[in-house]
């Protein structure tokens, strides 16, 4: 693992400098809370809660800024441009391992078997019927070092294959089904809505959901902030936690 600056340097075009990590206790006391959220379903909780007034009901002055990837959101939080973010737990842990002072204040999306929103897909005409047959094959993921790559590895290994022999390639989610149909890849992790669309159209089938290989139940995304902001805003953090975990039950 390298330094936090090196990790963030890989993240985005945002100019992150060490000066951004100086204490901002005074700024953290300000009432407005800018939430950095992404565009995947497991982060959509932020939009639902904001739209339904779940935070404003508690007197929280929240607004959402959308980032195209979690790393850019993390850079914004580390730099003080946003106070709270919603990101994949794995990505938060990777940032934490690079000495970014992040702490998870609330859970977000959760995987609970037998509910699936992703699958390791092969073309409908593929002779492959088990993930273990993917040893040595070309498999696409959206992010090799993210949750995508992790769950594909876990599924292949649990099925009796050897993920260390797989040739992983990174392909944008929108292009994976076409790559499967063209035979350029043997399999790909596909998320909803592309997964459901591919299954309905019959162009691809699923070998299983790699998230089941990680656990029957685990939190995929979390709400996080810096230890500094949390230290100065525990009441606000508690309200965010309380309201975000009410979202599913409140509908």
């Amino acid at each position, binding site marked *: 693992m390298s330094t936090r600056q090196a990790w963030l340097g890989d993240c985005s075009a945002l100019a992150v400098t060490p000066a951004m990590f100086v204490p901002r206790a005074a700024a953290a006391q300000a009432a407005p809370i800018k939430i950095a959220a992404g565009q995947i379903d497991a982060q959509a909780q932020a939009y639902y809660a904001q739209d339904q007034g779940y935070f404003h009901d508690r007197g929280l002055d929240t607004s959402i800024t959308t980032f195209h990837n979690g790393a850019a959101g993390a850079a914004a939080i580390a730099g003080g441009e946003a106070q709270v973010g919603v990101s994949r737990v794995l990505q938060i*842990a990777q940032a934490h391992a690079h000495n970014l002072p992040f702490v998870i204040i609330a*859970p977000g999306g959760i995987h609970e078997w037998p509910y699936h929103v992703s699958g390791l897909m092969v073309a409908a005409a593929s002779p492959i019927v088990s993930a273990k047959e993917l040893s040595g094959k070309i498999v696409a993921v959206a992010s090799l070092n993210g949750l995508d790559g992790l769950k594909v590895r876990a599924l292949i290994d649990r099925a009796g294959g050897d993920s260390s022999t797989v040739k992983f390639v990174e392909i944008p989610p929108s292009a994976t089904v076409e790559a499967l149909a063209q035979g350029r890849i043997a399999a790909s992790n596909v998320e909803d809505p592309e997964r459901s669309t591919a299954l309905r159209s019959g162009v691809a089938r699923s070998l299983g959901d790699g998230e089941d290989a990680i656990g029957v*139940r*685990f939190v995929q995304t979390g709400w996080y902030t810096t230890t500094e902001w949390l230290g100065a805003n525990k009441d606000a953090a508690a309200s965010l936690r309380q309201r*975000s975990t009410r979202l599913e039950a409140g509908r």
Partner: protein
Amino acid sequence: MSAPGKAALILQKYLGVTGTPSAQRFATAMRAADFQPILDAGAHYGLIPATSAVTLVWDGR
């Protein structure tokens, strides 16, 4: 989401995306143990060092 139609309208409003949202579910309680499986898997495959969820999750105090 338990109200996918309503959720779809919200995502269209904020993200400009159309279509029915997935069957994504959201946690209804904060349990550090629920974070551990992904941390263990990430450590197993060398993506993160071994990490206890309690070091990453706020205990509410």
